């Protein structure tokens, strides 16, 4: 028995007994019992026992959870909640027999109704301002600022209307939130900023992607990177044979509307022995990639060659002995969501080597909204990848240059002879 099961048992028993006592009078007319038994009936209908065919909504033992996850379905919600649901009658909120709870729900419902009225009022006001002519409002500038402030307030009201709804919270926690709705976008954004964004920002600043590749980056979209099925955390080392094919991106926007973005993968760590420094190499460049809050998946290998991909994927390889390569994936928003002219971009950016992303950014007025990072170094699979892509210098190795000691520390200077 899992800990949470044991922990929630007394609570459940208490709930069940009080529920039974209070419901004895009116359980007949209450529709609840039918829906309560829903889960239990469904179980009894199944010929298989629970451990053979665990329900992702109810499974609570770690072993069964693991089995489910191996099959590809993730259990829903927290383990504590699933354990509690196993024995609960699963009544809808409005039929729960707790007076205080119902009173609280009424307060929340009243608040929501109030907010909805405000939203309606705000919409009407916005429509009124939009209908006014420019002279009446007092110039284009003031009209713009007024409208902007009103829109902002409207968005805030929309979130406030739903933020206290227990069903919304539950749906979001179950991962069933509809990202086309502002409240779920708001919740997802908040969750992302709480942990994942912090990690990302730390990685790109500590590994110096930000001053090396781009001067600034304030990530506002959640970016996940996959090679095959495996997700790569920001800054992970990726084997050379894993990264031979282009990765898949999952770019979650938290704003409404659609954006066109440019996606670039840049390696700022190509060793240049002659100049005793590092060069840049663009491993991938694609423009005019549409993104929205609901359209998040971008497969870099599936983008169209004749309208989007400027530079196709070049598998990253690191020469033996060279310091690790930071393959930085940058997602840059195109100005006003306008498409770039593909032919000119393709003509201008044909060179992979030493094209600075800063230059591209300035040339096409791009703004970095998302970043990701993975690293590659020489490993046992690098040589075959080098051979398959025809990498020059596969038979060479980098070694540290010997440090010339200061004159007075030399073992055998000419002055000794």
């Amino acid at each position: 028995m899992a800990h949470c099961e044991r922990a929630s048992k007394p609570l459940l028993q208490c709930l069940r007994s009080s529920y039974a006592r209070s419901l004895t009078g009116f359980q007949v007319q209450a529709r609840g019992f039918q829906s309560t038994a829903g889960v239990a009936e469904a179980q009894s209908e199944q010929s298989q026992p629970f451990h053979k065919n665990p329900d992702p909504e109810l499974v609570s033992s770690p072993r069964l959870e693991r089995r489910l996850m191996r099959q590809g379905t993730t259990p829903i919600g927290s383990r504590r909640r699933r354990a509690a649901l196993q024995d609960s009658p699963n009544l809808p909120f409005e039929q729960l027999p707790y007076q205080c709870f119902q009173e609280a729900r009424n307060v929340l419902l009243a608040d929501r109704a109030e907010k909805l009225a405000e939203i309606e009022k705000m919409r009407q006001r916005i429509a009124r301002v939009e209908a006014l002519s420019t002279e009446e409002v007092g110039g284009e500038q003031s009209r713009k600022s007024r409208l902007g402030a009103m829109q902002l307030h409207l968005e805030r009201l929309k979130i406030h209307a739903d933020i206290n709804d227990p069903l919304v919270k539950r749906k979001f926690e179950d991962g069933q939130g509809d990202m086309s709705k502002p409240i779920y976008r708001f919740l997802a954004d908040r969750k992302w900023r709480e942990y994942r964004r912090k990690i990302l920002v730390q990685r790109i600043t500590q590994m110096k992607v930000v001053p090396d590749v781009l001067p600034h980056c304030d990530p506002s979209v959640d970016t996940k990177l996959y090679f095959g099925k495996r997700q790569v955390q920001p800054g992970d080392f990726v084997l050379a044979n894993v990264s031979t094919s282009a990765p898949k991106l999952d770019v979650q926007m938290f704003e409404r509307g659609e954006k066109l973005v440019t996606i670039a993968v840049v390696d700022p760590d190509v060793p240049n022995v002659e100049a005793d420094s590092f060069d840049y190499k663009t491993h991938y460049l694609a423009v005019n990639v549409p993104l929205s809050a609901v359209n998040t998946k971008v497969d870099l290998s599936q983008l169209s060659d004749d309208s989007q991909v400027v530079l196709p994927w070049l598998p990253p390889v690191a020469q033996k002995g060279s310091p690790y390569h930071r393959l930085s994936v940058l997602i840059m928003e195109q100005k006003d969501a306008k498409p770039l002219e593909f032919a000119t971009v393709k003509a201008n950016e044909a060179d992979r080597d030493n094209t600075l992303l800063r230059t591209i950014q300035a040339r096409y007025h791009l703004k970095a909204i998302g970043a990701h990072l993975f690293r590659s170094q020489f490993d046992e699979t690098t040589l075959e990848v080098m051979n398959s892509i025809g990498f020059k210098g596969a038979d060479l190795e980098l070694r540290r240059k010997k440090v010339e000691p200061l004159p007075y520390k030399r073992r055998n200077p000419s002055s000794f002879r």
Partner: protein
Amino acid sequence: MLQPRLLGPLRALERAFVPSIRSAQHSFQPQSLIQRSLSASITLPKTTPSISRTLLPFSQVRYASHASQGTANRHSRDPAGKRLGAKRTGGEYVVPGCIIFKQRGSKWFPGDNCAMGRDHTIYATQAGYVRYYADPEKHPERRYIGIVFEKDGQLPHPRNAPSRRKLNMVTIPRMDPVAFQSDMVASIDENGTQVGSVEAVNAVSGPQLRPGYMYREANWQIGRAAEKAGISAMPYDRRNRWLAWRKRQVRAERAAQMKSLKGKKKAGKKGK
């Protein structure tokens, strides 16, 4: 020397009493009353507690016989200098590992191409020219020591400028790691005896002439003897407390045996 502080008043008491005692008791010894009362106080009946016994357990005084030996130990409290401070000035050329600043605590922090050692020593990690600077954007109060590559380079760099780095590497033909060498063999021919190592795949099984002029099997084959014979050790089970107890017992016995032997040896030596 510690002396009871009450001795002074007691002496005064003694001075007051003694003439009367002397006049009353002719057999009085020329010994002070206090000492007598101190030594006799334990044997005295409880109904008449002596003066000294009731007054003695008070604080004691240290007279200046030791502490007044003033400045004799001054040098032990004035240690040698630790040779801290700057070892390289600004603009001086340094190579990796050069110590630039020795300090107690982090008076200076390592900036570009510098690092801080275990005792907060700042040393160079790149060859270049030393710069002492402040970087208010990075930290408003810290002072940094950094290295620039050009003689007239400036620090700090702008925050959003790409970092300036050097590769400091040369290319050589790639060397694959040498395959695992398993054992030593020796061969005798007209050139003399040659000792070398062979790879596991080339190692001939069976006895060969090996170092030490022995015909024997390779070490790795000897090591696999138990495996070949099908002898397997019992897998270790940490919950098997019976086995653990027996092992511990054997170890204790052995230790006791060794200890007794040691004692005997010593005893024998002493006897001689």
